[in-house]
């Protein structure tokens, strides 16, 4: 039986380095933006992530795209 994959939502997560701790290790904070269109192009999502990060003080360490989907059986 075949299974269909139906996109349910996409989240853009910015991993921001806010500073370093007492051991000199980087401290990260996540900023998540839900309501990203599942069909949005990676390039566009990346560009927006960079633009948003450019407005604030922390360093953009990573850009994560989290795609969710529902699996449905086709009968």
């Amino acid at each position, binding site marked *: 039986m075949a299974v269909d994959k139906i996109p349910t939502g996409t989240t853009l997560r910015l991993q921001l380095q806010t500073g370093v701790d007492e051991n000199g290790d980087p401290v990260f904070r996540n900023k998540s*933006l839900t*309501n990203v269109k599942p069909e949005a*192009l990676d390039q*566009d999502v990346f*560009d*927006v992530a960079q*633009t948003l990060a450019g407005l*604030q003080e922390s360093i953009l360490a990573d850009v994560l795209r989290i795609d969710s989907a529902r699996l449905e059986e086709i009968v």
Partner: protein
Amino acid sequence: METTQTLQMRFVTQAGTRVTISLDNPRDDLTEAEVTAAMDQIIAKNIFSTSGGDLVAKDSAQIIDRTVNVIYEA
């Protein structure tokens, strides 16, 4: 006393409702041109969808200062 700042960018959706994107710790030297350019790019890239549909226009942008004065702490 601890002060935090938040940049709030408000957009107008297709349905005419307002949607806010908030960012903590905005840069101190942010200019109006930078913020409006960023908002224009977000609208142009059109990667966000809300209950009111796509973001179609800029509404406003503001920086909110929040100061916390601890009166009592156990």
